[in-house]
């Protein structure tokens, strides 16, 4: 563990990725994540890695495909419009079962939208914005430290399942500086990452083995169907093994607030304040958005009087919460789309039953 450093989220992500063995980064500039590729551009060559600015996000995701297929530990990052451009490529990565880490530092949409923090890419990340039946494993950290902590896991999970893993952040996480401890100090030497050949399926050259093929085309429906169920089987495994969440004071809570990422920080403050004021509130914070912690939330909601979903969007995780909660109790919603960040007071008001669905 390094001593605590004050680091910008975007830079902490980059450094943590490198410390997790990432040596290949392909990306294209976009606000509010530019410090991430810029950090990579400075630092990767120092550790024998490759930073390459692609001509577009479409190209970047396909470079990721090539590098992942060649056995590299690889990552890209972007923000909402750029991630939309990657959807075909992401579907290919999932279809060809290639491991990689994708970072989306979400900004306000739709269209060019804005450059401030939002959570309106939840559907795209969790349900699959690309075509076909596939999923990303989606992790949503709530602080710069958690982002750093999740990165090693993100790469390992990508390898474990041979599936892309998305880190869903937002402009607040990307732009803010917080105290953070990295696995290693910046001047500590890094162990060399495992060579590409250690991935036996990778296209590293057919030496002493039959040739490897990276592909997502199955022209016979029977083969494609089989492939699809094979992939689904991985998702069932993820649903069994990779659910992550945090539950704070939900056991006796009348109001369970459900929020992830930046919104969860704010909700946490509001919940604490509510308790101080004698209101029995709790916070349920999904960390893995896919697989979503349906079961745990269902149980928490079973004991509550109501559930309040807070998102920096018009209501997207809301669907998953409703699926979890069913008719156990009412599900209410408070949303701030477009780059406005809800304040603890706004959330507190809704906990107290004041104020409307939106500002």
């Amino acid at each position, binding site marked *: 563990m390094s001593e605590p450093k004050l680091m910008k989220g975007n830079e902490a992500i980059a450094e943590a990725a490198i410390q997790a063995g990432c040596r*290949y980064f*392909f990306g294209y500039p976009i606000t509010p994540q530019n410090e991430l590729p810029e950090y990579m551009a400075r630092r990767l060559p120092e550790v024998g890695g*490759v930073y*390459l600015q*692609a*001509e*577009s996000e*479409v*190209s*970047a995701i*396909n*470079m*990721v*495909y*090539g*590098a*992942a*297929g*060649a*056995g*590299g530990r*690889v990552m890209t990052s972007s923000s909402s419009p750029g991630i939309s451009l990657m959807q*075909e*490529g992401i579907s*290919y990565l999932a279809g*060809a079962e290639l491991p990689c880490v994708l970072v989306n530092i979400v900004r306000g949409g739709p269209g060019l939208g804005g450059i401030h923090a939002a959570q309106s890419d939840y559907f795209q990340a969790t349900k699959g914005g690309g075509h076909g039946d596939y999923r990303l494993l989606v992790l949503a950290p709530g602080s710069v430290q958690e982002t750093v902590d999740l990165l090693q896991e993100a790469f390992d999970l990508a390898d474990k399942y041979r599936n892309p893993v998305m880190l869903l952040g937002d402009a607040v996480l990307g732009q803010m500086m917080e105290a953070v401890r990295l696995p290693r100090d910046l001047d500590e030497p890094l162990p060399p990452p495992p060579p*590409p050949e250690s991935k036996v399926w990778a*296209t*590293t*050259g*057919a*030496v002493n083995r039959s*040739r*490897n*093929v*990276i*592909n*997502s*085309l199955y022209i016979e429906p029977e083969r494609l169907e089989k492939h699809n169920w094979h992939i689904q089987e991985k998702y069932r495994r993820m649903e069994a093994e990779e659910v992550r969440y945090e539950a704070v004071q939900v056991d006796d809570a009348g109001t369970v607030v459900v929020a992830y990422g930046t919104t969860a920080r704010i909700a946490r403050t509001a919940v604490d304040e509510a308790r101080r004021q004698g209101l029995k509130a709790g916070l349920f914070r999904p960390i893995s958005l896919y697989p979503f912690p349906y079961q745990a939330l269902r149980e928490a909601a079973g004991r509550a009087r109501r559930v309040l979903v807070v998102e920096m969007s018009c209501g997207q995780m809301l669907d998953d919460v409703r699926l979890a909660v069913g008719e156990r109790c009412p599900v209410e919603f408070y949303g701030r789309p477009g780059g406005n960040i809800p304040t603890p007071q706004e959330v507190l008001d809704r906990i107290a039953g004041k104020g409307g669905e939106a500002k």
Partner: protein
Amino acid sequence: MTTVVAQRPKSLSDVVMNYCPGCTHGIIHRLVAEAIDALDARERTIGVASVGCSVFAYNYFECDMQQASHGRAPAVATGIKRVLPDRLVFTYQGDGDLASIGAAEIVHAAARGENITVIFVNNANYGMTGGQMAPTTLLGQKTTTTPLGRDPKTDGFPIRMAEMLATLQGPAYIARVSVHSPQAVKQAGDAIKKAFRLQAEGKGFTLIEVLSTCPTNWGLAPNQALKWLVENLIPFYPLGEFKKEEGGA
């Protein structure tokens, strides 16, 4: 005593290729395989198949292969090459793939002087999807989306990719060849071999544009298709070397 004059190259997989009878994609595959064999590089070559009639190329080359999304083979190849700089990496792309949807990717791989070899099969239409106009379709040529013949006023002009890319600094070698006769095939093979050799020497981006037939969508018998190629494609797409061993190094 007998000596081998011609036989199936090692780097060409021993399977039936799904091309239409007489389609010259098959000849070009063989030439690529021969070039890999010439460098004895099958075990250190990674090929990238694109989307087009040659989509199954990943089954036809006996080396490690990746199948890329439509137009993005140069980006995929770049990803591979950056991880494995000492391997040989090539793409095999049609004219729709390379010159239309993949125009940005090829321009930038070329501009970067990316040390890969691109085999660019120009058959002046989209074979795989049933014969639509390609960026390389000649003026007046009839396709399923230019039923009255390509009209520059609405459909634009054909693009000479080799010439366009040759204006860039990154490429080490760009040539246009054809496969309409045994002599032409020989020259095409030599150009492809040269491109792979330059890559092996780290010289930078190499691209061989190969004029090819599409008997099925041109609606011509295989031999007639070769004739049409000679009489129509070559005059507009002159054969030759457009860029030689500069840049990239």
